[in-house]
């Protein structure tokens, strides 16, 4: 497991990443994102915050290989990302992506079965993931029988069993209540420590970003660029009680100060509508 920090090898490189949506009928082209330059170090926990519509999710889609950048270069473990999802990357989405026709167990086993792993390997890994995410009692339940938080855990477990080296999370706790979000944050930290994976978390919750990440990238209003990357300096062993740390408030307000003007600008751009 490599420690997060300046000396860890670079895992993801972004250079001049820009995304422009081409002109539609009677609509000019939309410059959604960039240019973005970023190096993610192996094993670090990086959070991205920014005003609504600043292109955070677009950035994640480009790194995941789910969208192609209009300009710039992205690479993962030295290989260019070119519009297909590279091996070793797992994505957890904001929306519920659990498969409603499969039990929790079969949801988690889905990716492994797609890869044609032998049944005993699938069994062992799914059992580990069920235990790790606290889903063992619900293995035979269908997603519709679970709460939103539990379903999101299923999606995380489904990604986790594939042992991704880079985990991308797009506002995974956005639809959950505050207490559940804090607890899910703790689980995410535990997962991050135990797997040694690099994590990129997109969130609109400043406290969540401050609590979880080694570094927080603060993005401007559209077109999204990094205004500043704030280093939190937390120890690797940490959990949600860190919100009581005297430095927590300072870091969060530092990020908010950077964001406030941008959020106002974003509101002004789009009116009250979202």
């Amino acid at each position: 497991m490599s420690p997060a920090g300046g000396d860890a090898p670079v895992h993801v490189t972004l250079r001049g990443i820009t995304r422009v949506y081409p002109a539609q009928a009677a609509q000019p082209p939309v410059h959604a994102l960039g240019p973005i330059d970023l190096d993610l170090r192996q094993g670090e926990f990086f959070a991205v915050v920014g005003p609504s519509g600043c292109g955070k999710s677009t950035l994640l889609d480009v790194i995941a290989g789910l969208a192609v950048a209009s300009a710039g270069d992205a690479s993962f473990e030295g290989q260019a990302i070119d519009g297909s999802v590279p091996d070793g990357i797992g994505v957890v989405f904001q929306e519920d992506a659990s498969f409603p026709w499969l039990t929790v167990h079969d949801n988690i086993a889905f990716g492994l079965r797609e890869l044609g792993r032998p049944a005993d390997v699938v069994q062992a890994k799914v059992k580990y993931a069920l235990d790790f995410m606290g889903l063992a009692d619900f293995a035979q339940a269908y997603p519709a029988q679970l709460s939103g938080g539990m379903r999101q855990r299923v999606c995380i477990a489904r990604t986790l069993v594939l042992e991704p080296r880079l985990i991308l999370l797009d506002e995974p706790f956005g639809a959950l209540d505050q207490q559940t979000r804090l607890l899910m944050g703790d689980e995410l930290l535990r997962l991050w420590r135990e797997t040694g994976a690099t994590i990129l978390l997109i969130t609109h919750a400043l406290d969540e970003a401050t609590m979880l990440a080694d570094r927080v990238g603060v993005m401007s209003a559209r077109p999204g660029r990094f205004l500043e990357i704030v280093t939190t300096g937390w120890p690797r062993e940490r959990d949600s009680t860190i919100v009581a740390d005297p430095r927590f408030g300072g870091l969060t307000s530092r990020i908010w100060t950077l964001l406030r003007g941008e959020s106002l600008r974003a509101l002004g751009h789009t009116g009250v509508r979202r």
Partner: protein
Amino acid sequence: MKRVTLLRILVILGAIGLLEGLIHAGIVPRFTIIPPSEMASALAAILASGKLKVDIAVTLTNVAVAIVASMAAGVTIGTVLQRAAALRRILDPLFATYYAIPMYAFYPLLIVVFGLGDVPQICIGFLLAVMAVIINTLNGLDRVPRVLLKAARMHRMSALRTALRIRLPYAAPYIFTGFKLAVAYSFIGVIGAEFITSSRGIGYEISFAYNNFDNRLMYGLILFVLALVLTVNMSLHAWEKRLMMRRQR
């Protein structure tokens, strides 16, 4: 038993009892309709004698072929059309007006093409059933959430595997509705066609009994068809409910 189920049974029993009473009282002439109790005994006699075994087997086989063919073709055509937006737009008016076409009007043509065997009946059943499957397949596939398709890309699945493992399973409850309709339409199509021109089958026997004023045989067979279709559709309905239970919160 649930209150509504009990009431439902009471309504049906009441209607049967009323009909029985009206006929025995001579208000409805026996020449028009025989009492339900006699229909049941006539059906029992028909089944016990075994003389219509071949007709029943022929009809059920033809219905089954129409059902299976319309399901397979309907899901395949629906899946392909959902991915071919331009073709779908061209065919859209046909879908909207399909059930305005009187399929039986093509029956003479089908007999000319396929002869007097079982194929024309199967064709009518198929033609009536297939569109219900196509439309419901399209409806289900249109509803697949984008995030599930993103998840498919994350698992690096091909278009075919995405269709088989994500799109179709998600659409399954909708497709099932199409299957239920396909079963009903196949019965209607095949038995209806047997009425017109054929030499065997339940529809042919009902029509033959009708022409010979054989009320016992005619009503016995009508009861048979009714009981058969109701049983099949009720079991499909129960299955569908089980399928939907998993999806509902």
